């Protein structure tokens, strides 16, 4: 097995890095699009109960719909390819982002906001100087969860023709060549763990900065 | 002859470098109602918790009913000392009857005896068993919860009852009612020793046969209320009692 894995890297490392590139492209693009939608929505949700209720219901619903279903359902409608994969991944990343953004802003103590207002801040300044810094650890936690979800679901994107590391697992399962399966699975797992460590580190950093300011 | 049921000899308690209690010596006789008065940080609650072993002294010897605490099984000890805390102490997931039956159940009493005890205890504190047994703590008022707390502590007929600021969350009028009730309870159960911690000087003077005034981990004075008023031992005690006089002066002024 080990020999086969080494041989794969000797002969096909270009192919391998191609899959990694596709996987990263899919994951990061969908994460960025999802953040652009989720942050304003989450901020609105923290100020407006109707928006918040809508977001909560939407998230609850999405949690019980299998990600597999979301990925597959678009194919008969849009065909295979990168675009339907991106759409599905964005939809999957929204719940953790929105929910945690709302949570983050809601956790900001109303007393602090009142103090901010009484010191003469307008809504923009309040957001920038008080609410956002205090909500940031929660928001970043949402980003972490979304990233893990996206990387995980992007593994399945191979089924709808968007490539990525899942292709190796898929091919390996089809041809019953375990070396492909192992390479693909381990790479995805590492990618996921790395991104989690990275986000954990960023969150810790933000928390420390907060504390050193007090 | 009266006998000492609680005895502290050179007891000290440290948390790290912080000395909470330093060299505490006192004796309490069976049947006494002792109140302990002090501000927060005076060591009064720590003293109480050392009696039922929730806190262990770093130095010194504590004797309960003639037994050295170091040689006593603490779980058994707790089951034979009543313990009343603020109303939060009732378990919210248990009915009133279940709350009162906790310790009897731990002691494996039979069902009939437990049911009878629950009824007796509720009657003892003036709550109708038929009405209250099946309710949950959240359905009772603060004063009622406190009565159940006392009933629960009495369930195993313990010789010693510990009270840790039980009434501090109640409002003034209800508080006066339950104080009166506890005083009567002790008169009915005159062989039981009550050890009652409070930061309210009026409560301490009203309830206690003797009042232990604590400050910074030491006893300032341990005497009957009459003695305290007549002969305050230290400036601290004098100042503390001075506040009662001030209240009276205020009363006279507006009368």
């Amino acid at each position, binding site marked *: 097995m080990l020999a086969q894995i080494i041989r794969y890297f000797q002969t096909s490392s270009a192919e391998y890095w191609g899959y990694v590139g596709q996987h990263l492209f899919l994951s990061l693009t969908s994460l960025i699009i999802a953040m652009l939608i989720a942050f304003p929505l989450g901020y609105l949700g923290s100020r407006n109960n109707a928006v918040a209720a809508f977001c909560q219901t939407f998230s609850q619903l999405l949690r*019980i719909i299998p990600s597999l*279903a979301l990925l597959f359902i678009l194919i008969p409608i849009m065909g295979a390819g990168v675009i339907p994969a991106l759409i599905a991944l964005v939809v999957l990343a929204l719940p953790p982002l929105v929910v945690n953004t709302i949570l983050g802003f809601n956790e900001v103590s109303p007393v602090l906001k009142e103090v901010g207002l009484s010191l003469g801040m307008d809504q923009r300044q309040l957001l920038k100087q008080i609410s956002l810094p205090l909500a940031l650890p929660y928001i970043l936690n949402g980003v972490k969860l979304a990233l893990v979800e996206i990387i995980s679901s992007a593994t399945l994107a191979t089924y709808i023709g968007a490539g990525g590391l899942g292709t190796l697992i898929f091919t390996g399962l089809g041809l019953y060549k375990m070396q492909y399966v192992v390479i693909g699975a381990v790479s995805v797992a590492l990618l996921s763990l790395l991104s989690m460590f990275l986000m954990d580190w960023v969150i810790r950093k933000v928390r420390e900065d907060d504390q050193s300011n007090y | 002859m009266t006998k000492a049921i609680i005895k502290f000899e050179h007891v000290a308690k440290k948390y790290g470098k912080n000395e909470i209690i330093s060299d505490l010596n006192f004796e309490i006789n069976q049947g006494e109602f002792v109140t302990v008065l002090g501000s927060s940080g005076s060591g009064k609650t720590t003293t109480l918790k050392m009696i039922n072993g929730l806190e262990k002294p770093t130095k010194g010897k504590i004797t309960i009913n003639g037994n050295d605490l170091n040689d006593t099984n603490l779980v058994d000890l707790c089951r034979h000392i009543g313990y009343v805390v603020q109303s939060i*102490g009732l*378990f919210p997931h248990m009915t009133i009857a279940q709350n009162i039956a906790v310790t009897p159940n731990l002691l494996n009493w039979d069902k009939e005896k437990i049911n009878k005890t629950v009824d007796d205890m509720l009657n003892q504190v003036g709550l109708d068993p038929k009405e209250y047994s099946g309710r949950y703590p959240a359905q009772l008022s603060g004063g009622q919860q406190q009565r159940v707390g006392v009933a629960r502590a009495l369930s195993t007929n313990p010789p010693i009852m510990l009270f840790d600021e039980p009434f501090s969350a109640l409002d003034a009028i209800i508080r006066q009612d339950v104080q009166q009730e506890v005083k009567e309870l002790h008169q009915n159960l005159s062989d039981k020793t009550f050890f009652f911690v409070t930061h309210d000087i009026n409560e301490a003077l009203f309830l206690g046969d003797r009042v232990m005034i604590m400050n910074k981990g030491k006893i300032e004075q341990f005497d009957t209320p009459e003695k305290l008023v007549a002969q305050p031992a230290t400036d601290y005690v004098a100042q503390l009692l001075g506040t009662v006089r001030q209240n009276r002066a205020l009363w006279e002024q507006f009368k």
Partner: protein
Amino acid sequence: MIKYWQDNSARMMQLTIEHARMVLIALFIAFLVAIVLIAVFLRKKNWMNSLIYFFSLLYSVPSYAFFALLIPITGLGETTAIIVLAFYNEYVLLRTLITGIREVDPNYIEVARGMGMTQEEIFTKVQLPLSMPAIFSGLQVALASTMAIATIASTISAGGLGDLMFEGLQTGRVVPILWGTILTVALTLVCIVILKLIENLVISDGLEKS
């Protein structure tokens, strides 16, 4: 849609049952393990935290990869699927249970000690019942997420409702995919409702009214 149901209802029911069996067995195993782990490690805080961190790492492993990685060890099929699902559950359950138990007001624990309960009695009579709401919400989250993940188990021939989705993918038809989705969601909702009913029976009324 309806025609598909008429033609395939027996098979669809079969797949639903497979799906439910897979998820529920995994949940049951994970729950038992969680209770045991908590009972053993509750008062070793560092151990518990590392344990939770360990499971959180496993949890972040993409399910497709997790399924695939176990094939060389446990082969294709239901057993592998159940193992993977149980690991995912373990993290959710441990985290929610521990949070629930740690959030029990320390006053209750002190009072319980003051009344003469031993550590085990405090755990079974005070901490566990008081954290029941957290336990049930943990079970519900675990159930919902593994119901969805279990569809992917179809890729390692473990059956379940994922089969319908892959059938639709391969034949390019929406109907089987939709049916697979609807049945998964419906099964999840039914299980959640049953869980709620159990919760109402188990949880003390005293906790609901406060």
